């Protein structure tokens, strides 16, 4: 038996004791952010995205050219001191055009994702919350829409309304929300059965309040991850449309249309393909890395 000084056996007061119980509690979001920060690849993705966004905003102003300014004397130049990324067939500065295109591609991607998100969350949320007949009808509708191959529908829509930034966004949003709506519905259906929702309902909270305050915040993790993957999806779809001749029309540029031009002149002027494909791939890569990181960080099952 150890020898211990007698005075050590004095009982300690309750208050003094209670203080020591404190253990650091972390909110869901703080915890998720901590996990995300530890994920090097996701952070690289995030930083690259921030840098690319800044370049997309200020890039075009660094050079004294506009995206549509032609200079037939300076056609098809390789990268040089005046034209950092070279010029195209019409002597337009590629540096300016690429950042201008990045701006448009990011705009298309983000706007489409926001629209998908809004429509999907509303539709899925309403469908899941009300359940029964409402859900049944809304789901039958989704089942029909879901069967429609979205790229084909987009092609048709764009043929009718004509290509342009807003028509592309519109076309993407018309078809893109379905996946999100299904996801939100699934999430909410599983959450709906949980006690805290029942508690809120017993306390007399209105449906709208329950959806906005209780269900959506709890399903938000998965939804955010999905939205992160929607952005590169939309950017890709825009590029695909450009490739089959339904994209942004010149003189405006998007990464997709620049890629398409680049492919055409690859043999003689490889830099016209290399620069836009680098920016394009970096954007796609960063969003995917960030999305993966967010998924790992926000997945409650992985929480310890």
């Amino acid at each position, binding site marked *: *038996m*150890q020898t*211990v000084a*007698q*005075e*050590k*056996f*004095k*009982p*300690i007061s*309750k208050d003094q*004791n*209670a203080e*020591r*119980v404190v*253990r*650091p509690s972390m909110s869901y979001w703080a915890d998720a952010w*901590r*996990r995300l920060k*530890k994920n090097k690849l996701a952070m690289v993705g995030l930083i690259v995205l921030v840098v690319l966004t800044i370049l997309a905003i200020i890039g075009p102003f660094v050079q004294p050219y506009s995206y549509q300014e032609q200079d037939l004397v300076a056609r098809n130049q390789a990268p040089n001191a005046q034209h950092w990324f070279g010029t195209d067939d019409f002597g337009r500065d590629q540096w300016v055009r690429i950042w201008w295109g990045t701006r448009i591609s990011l705009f298309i991607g983000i706007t489409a994702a926001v629209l998908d998100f809004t429509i999907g969350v509303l539709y899925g949320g309403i469908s899941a919350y009300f359940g029964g007949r409402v859900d049944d009808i809304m789901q039958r509708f989704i089942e029909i829409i879901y069967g429609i191959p979205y790229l084909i529908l987009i092609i048709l829509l764009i043929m009718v309304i004509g290509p342009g930034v807003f028509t592309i966004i519109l076309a993407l949003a018309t078809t893109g929300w379905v996946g999100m709506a299904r996801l939100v519905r699934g999430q909410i259906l599983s959450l709906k059965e949980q006690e805290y929702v029942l508690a809120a309902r017993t306390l007399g909270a209105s449906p709208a309040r329950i959806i906005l305050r209780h269900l959506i915040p709890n399903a938000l993790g998965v939804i955010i991850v999905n939205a992160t993957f929607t952005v590169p999806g939309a950017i890709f779809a825009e590029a695909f449309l450009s490739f089959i001749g339904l994209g942004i029309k010149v003189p405006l540029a998007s990464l997709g249309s620049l890629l398409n031009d680049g492919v055409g002149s690859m043999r003689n002027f490889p830099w016209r393909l290399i620069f836009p494909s680098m920016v394009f791939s970096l954007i796609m890569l960063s969003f995917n890395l960030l999305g993966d990181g967010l998924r790992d960080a926000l997945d409650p099952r992985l929480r*310890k």
Partner: protein
Amino acid sequence: MNNILEVKDLKVSFHTYAGEIQAVRGVTFNLKKGEALAIVGESGCGKSVTSQAIMRLIATPPGEIKSGSSILFDGKTDIVKLTDKEMESVRGSEMGMIFQDPMTSLNPTMKVGAQITEGLIKHQGLSKQAARERAIEMLRLVGMPNPEARIDQYPHQFSGGMRQRVMIAIALACNPKLLIADEPTTALDVTIQAQIIDLMRDLQEKTGASIIIITHDLGVVADIAQRVVVMYAGKVVEQGSVDDIFYNPQHPYTWGLLRSVPRLDNDEKEPLVPIEGTPPDLFAPPKGCAFAARCPYAMEICLESDPEIENVSAGHSAACWLLHPNAPKVERPVEVGGHHNG
């Protein structure tokens, strides 16, 4: 040697993003042949990790059984030192395990028959036909009606209780010397719980296997176990026979556990008393006694250093500073065997 299992100074840690979690921090206990031992404690106290360490089911990484730990099985093999390959021939044949949730512990895409025969074919070298017959026999043994037909069904065609019976059949198929049951009744309906416990007790008598049952249900403990290990924050705080623990508990945590469940053997109407607070963070276990922060009897020494395990009587020991001769005499709460003071 009449100990089937001797666990000595078992330490298990998990390495996570946030640092090292010391889930089990030096656990020592023995299990006699033919004995049923219960490990009790609240969620996160390390009881499941201990049982999985015995089966070497801790995934490494992130888990790690620390050096210095030893798990002597059947007097000769130290489980900790076996290679993965050697361990395969121990698992399933010498030890079997039942898990908490029968809804998830069976492979959903495989017929239950195949899930039982797998181990038989591997460990006992039975032919497919012989293994099948043995599986039918096992299913009958665990009380499955119409086993000849049920053997060709998939897990989703069984109820929870029936699935747990299948799990028991799998665990006992090769006549193991040790059966580890990790909360085998927690996920089941109350009526089914009793059936499963009866079945396990019955099978223990028939096969003579030793049992470790992990639970937080003291009713289950009283039903099946002869000895009890009480764990808190990765350590054993008290161990003894069922009578020792129920009628002469020494550790304030054990008192707390006993007071927090209703007892039928007591005539008086007594309120249930919860244990206040939450267990400590095992990222950074406290320097002193892990229970001190929640202990109504905590003393200064409790915060400063961890109490050693003291023998109370033969086979009964506890780790608490109150057992120190210099400690003030504390009156045990009435419900757990203290004296009535009027």
